[in-house]
């Protein structure tokens, strides 16, 4: 290295120049890709909601969404109403309820502001599905889910996802063997009060034949992720319970 590059003024100038160049480059990349990324996120939300109510292209063992191209149309066909629930029971229709950011609503609630709860009502084969988006904490980062229920709060399908759970362990919450366990599982207990769904390592029911025990089988090596998912289901879906009470049960 020559002496020129060792002087303090050169070092400072180089640092400033580098920050400007790299900063401008990254800002350019980020802002030019932003619309495309937002669009991808929107598509994904629709795919997740549809997945939960059983509108998907699953094969024998893996989870497959409706394709990006078709999802907009399919979403319009199956989702009959998008509701925003406030004060527990007041439901209002809102065509863009699926764009509500659950994370933002959670922090609003923490600040004492009112939380809006989005709920998507879908019809498939003559059955009505209620899909709720929920969000919680796993081991490393956020976990979230879309849970489809009938009007008695019996789970009809669920899609789980996560930001950074351990591959092969906690990340398996988005595998079919875990998600499918929730289908048919009751969120209310035998007496009819809200119980949630625990993720249990010792329920003696690994094949999940008992759908009314409010438990599914845990993933080995993913205790904290599982506990986080169970806590999320319990605290978040409970918020929807008052609204489900207003639905006519049959």
């Amino acid at each position, binding site marked *: *290295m020559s002496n020129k*590059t*060792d002087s303090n003024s*050169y*070092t400072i100038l*180089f*640092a400033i120049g*580098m*920050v400007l160049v*790299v900063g401008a*480059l*990254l800002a350019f*990349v*980020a802002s030019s*890709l932003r619309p*495309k*990324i937002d669009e*991808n*996120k929107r*598509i*994904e939300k629709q795919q997740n909601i549809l997945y939960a109510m059983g509108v998907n292209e699953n094969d024998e*063992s*893996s989870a497959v969404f409706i394709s990006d191209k078709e999802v907009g149309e399919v979403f319009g066909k199956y989702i009959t109403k998008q509701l925003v629930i406030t004060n527990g029971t007041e439901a209002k229709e809102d065509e863009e309820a699926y764009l509500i950011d659950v994370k933002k609503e959670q922090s609003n609630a923490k600040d004492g502001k009112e939380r809006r709860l989005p709920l998507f009502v879908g019809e498939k084969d003559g059955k009505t599905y209620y899909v709720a988006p929920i969000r919680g904490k796993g081991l*490393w*980062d956020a976990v979230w889910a879309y849970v489809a229920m009938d009007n008695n709060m019996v789970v009809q399908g669920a899609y789980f*996802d996560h*930001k*950074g759970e*351990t*591959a*092969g*362990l906690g990340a398996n919450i988005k595998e079919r063997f875990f998600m499918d366990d929730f289908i048919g599982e009751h969120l209310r207990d035998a007496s009819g009060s809200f119980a949630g769904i625990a993720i249990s390592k010792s329920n003696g029911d*690994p*094949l999940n034949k008992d759908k009314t025990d409010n438990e599914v089988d845990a993933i*080995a*090596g993913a205790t904290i992720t599982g506990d986080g998912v169970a806590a999320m289901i319990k605290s978040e879906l409970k918020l929807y319970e008052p609204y489900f009470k207003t639905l006519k049960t049959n």
Partner: protein
Amino acid sequence: MGLLSKKDQKLILDPLADDNPITIQVLGICSALAITAQLKASIVMTVSVIFVLGLGNVVISLIRNIIPSKIRIIVQLTVVAALVIIVDQVLKAFSYQLSKELGAFIGLIITNCIIMGRFEAFALGNGPWKSFLDGVGNALGYGVILIIVGFFRELLGSGTLLGFKVLGDPIAKTGLYAIGYENNGFMLLAPMALIVVGIIIWVQRTRNKALIED
């Protein structure tokens, strides 16, 4: 490899075996433990590191004569971080599903000591073409170990390869499981990755005694 001179070939081939970044230089162990529970994650990480290390080495090599030596580590970090962010954003825009699967791994590339190691040890003193070959070679050497470890961990830990149930179904008790075979859940945890890497190091040094240090 007619295009490459003997020296250039060495740049690519040496890191694959006798100068392997993981088993000989003992760099990049952290990510080799963290992401090898599944074969697919290993492969994806390999491809990402090939890209970042190959390109990063070229960038550093191009600006090697104007980098102030006092802040060269910071400059190197900035280059890696910028490349990783660009990879992340481009994937999010054009291959959203893939980017979700990679998630944390992309960020982990920054912490990979092989990258900083190659910038510091090679790109700062060599031309762009040689640096590119060195970057790709080292990333491949890293990837080979990752893939070997990922293969054994997924096979013995989950009984699957790339998600396919190659040993049968552990719950329905088909295939190997019918005769009492069980998955070894310990394989999925980080300590077993270290032990598998240790076994590779042992095998490699047994075959080539010249690699054994005193």
